[in-house]
C-alpha cells in the first residue's frame, strides 16, 4: 500500500494545480482578519477568531470542495488515458487502488488544515487581535487535525463517484452539491450527512462557543454515520470497479 501511495504522489508531483489549491487554505483566515479589522476589535477570544478562520466555512465548504476536486483529478487522468486495464494486469487490487487514492486525499487534507492553522495564527496574532498562547494554538492544531481526518473520510462518497465516472463533470457537480447539502442539512438533522457529523465531532463538549447545534451531541452516532457512508461508498466503488474490464 505504501508503494501505491508513493506512486500516487510521484504522479501528482507534476501537477502545479495541487500547490495552487493549497493556497485556498488562506482564504478564511484572511477573511477572518478582514472581518475583525472591519469591526476594529482587539483582544478577542482565540476561539472566536478560529471559529471564523478554521471551524466555519473552511470545514463546511472550502475543504470539502478542494478535496472533491482532488478526488476528481486523482481518478480522472487514469480513466481518461485508459490506464486502469494496465493497472489490473500488473496486478493492482481494486481495494488497494481505491485506498491509495484515499490516503493521498487524507494526507492532502491534513496539509491543508495545517496550513489553515498556521495562517489562522499568523492572521490573528501578528495584527494583535489575539494574544499568543500555546494552549489556544494546541487547541487549534488538535481541532484542525480532527477536521482533516474526518472530512477526508466524509469525502469517500465523492471519491467513489469519481472512481466510477469516466467524465469529470459528474463528480464536480456532485462535489458542489455534496458540500452545499452538508451546509444546509446541519440545522435540520446533524446525523444524516457526513459533513454535518464532522461539525458534531468538532463541537463536542461545547468546545466551540457560539456554535448552536439543533440536536444533542452524540459522538457515537456521528461516527456511525461517517462509517456507514464510507463503507457504502467503498462497497459501491468496489462493485463498479470489479465489473469494469
Amino acid at each position, binding site marked *: 500500500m505504501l508503494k501505491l501511495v508513493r506512486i500516487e504522489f510521484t504522479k501528482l508531483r507534476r501537477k502545479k*494545480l495541487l500547490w*495552487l*489549491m493549497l493556497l*485556498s487554505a488562506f*482564504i478564511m483566515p484572511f*477573511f477572518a482578519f*478582514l*472581518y475583525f479589522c*472591519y469591526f476594529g476589535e482587539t483582544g478577542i477570544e482565540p476561539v472566536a477568531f478560529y471559529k471564523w478562520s478554521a471551524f466555519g*466555512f473552511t470545514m463546511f*465548504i*472550502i475543504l470539502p*470542495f*478542494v478535496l472533491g*476536486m482532488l478526488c*476528481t*483529478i486523482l481518478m480522472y487522468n487514469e480513466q481518461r488515458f485508459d490506464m486502469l486495464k494496465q493497472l489490473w494486469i500488473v496486478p493492482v487490487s481494486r481495494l488497494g487502488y481505491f485506498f491509495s487514492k484515499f490516503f493521498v486525499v487524507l494526507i492532502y487534507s491534513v496539509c491543508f488544515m495545517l496550513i489553515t492553522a498556521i495562517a489562522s495564527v499568523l492572521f490573528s496574532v501578528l495584527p494583535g487581535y489575539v494574544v499568543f498562547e500555546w494552549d489556544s494554538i494546541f487547541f487549534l492544531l488538535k481541532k484542525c487535525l480532527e477536521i482533516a481526518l474526518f472530512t477526508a473520510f466524509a469525502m469517500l462518497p465523492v471519491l467513489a463517484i469519481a472512481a466510477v465516472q469516466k*467524465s469529470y*463533470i*459528474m463528480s*464536480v*457537480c456532485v462535489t*458542489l*452539491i455534496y*458540500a*452545499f*447539502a452538508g*451546509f*444546509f*442539512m446541519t*440545522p*435540520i438533522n446533524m446525523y444524516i450527512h457526513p459533513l454535518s457529523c464532522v461539525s458534531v465531532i468538532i463541537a463536542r463538549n461545547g468546545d466551540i462557543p457560539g456554535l448552536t447545534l*439543533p440536536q444533542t451531541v452524540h459522538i457515537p452516532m456521528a461516527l456511525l454515520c461517517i462509517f456507514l457512508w464510507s463503507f457504502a461508498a467503498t462497497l459501491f466503488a468496489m462493485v463498479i470497479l470489479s465489473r469494469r474490464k
Partner: protein
Amino acid sequence: MQILLWAECQKLRRSNILMLNAFAIIFIAVIVLIGGKTTVNGVDFSESSGWYMATTLTWATMFVLPAMIALLGSYMICREDQDDTAKSLHLIPVSKAKLTAAKMIVTFVFSILIYLLLFITTFSAEAVLHFSGLSVKMVLRSLKMYLLEGAGVFLAVSPIIAIVPYMKKSYWLAMLLAEIYSFAGLFMSMSNTLKTFYPITAVFGVSGYYEASIQNRICSAGVLLLCACLAIILLIRLNSSQKGKIHDEETI
C-alpha cells in the same frame, strides 16, 4: 455564426452535462426547502411566502451556480483541445474568434436557462406551499431577479471562462477560481462600497435583490460590463496570439 451556434447546441445535446445541471438545480432547490424547515425562535422560515424564492436565489448564487456556469463555459472551450478536434476545425477553416464567441453565447443562454429552471422549481414549490400568499407582482419581480441574476452571473464569471484557453486545459483552476470568487461575495456584502463594486454582489444590486440607489445600480452594472469587456479583450488577444503562432509555423 448561426451554424456555429447550431453546432455547439448539437455537441451539448450529446453530452450529459445539461441533464446533470438540471438535476443539480432541482437538488439545490430541494436542499434549501429542507433547510428552510429550520425553526428559529418559533419561526418557520419556509412558511412565509416569497422567502423560499429569495433564499434559494442567494445561496445558489453564492455557492453553486457561478462555478457551474464557469465549468460549462470552460468545458466547452477546452473540449476542442482535449478531444483533439481543434485541428480539424482549423482545417475547415473555422475562425477561432467566432467559435469562442459562439461558445460564450451558448454559455450566456445556458446561464439564463439555468436560473429560469431554478425559478420554475422554486415558484412551483411556493405555489404548492402557500399559493394564497403569492401575488402576481411578487412573482414577476422574482422572475425579473432570476433572469437578471442569470445574465449578471454570466458577465461576472466571463473573465474566468476567458482565461481558461490561456491556461491550457486547466479548467480545474477555472472552477476553483469561480467557486472562491462567488464564495467571497458573502464577505464583500458586509461593506456597502464592496457590495456595489464586487462583481458577484453587484449582480444582486442590478437584479434588485437588495435595495440600492440608482447611482449604485449604475456602478454595479458598469462593473459587470467591465467584466464582459475584460473577457472580450482576453479572447481577442488569444485569437491574435494564435494567428501569430500559425504565421510563425508557416514561415518556418
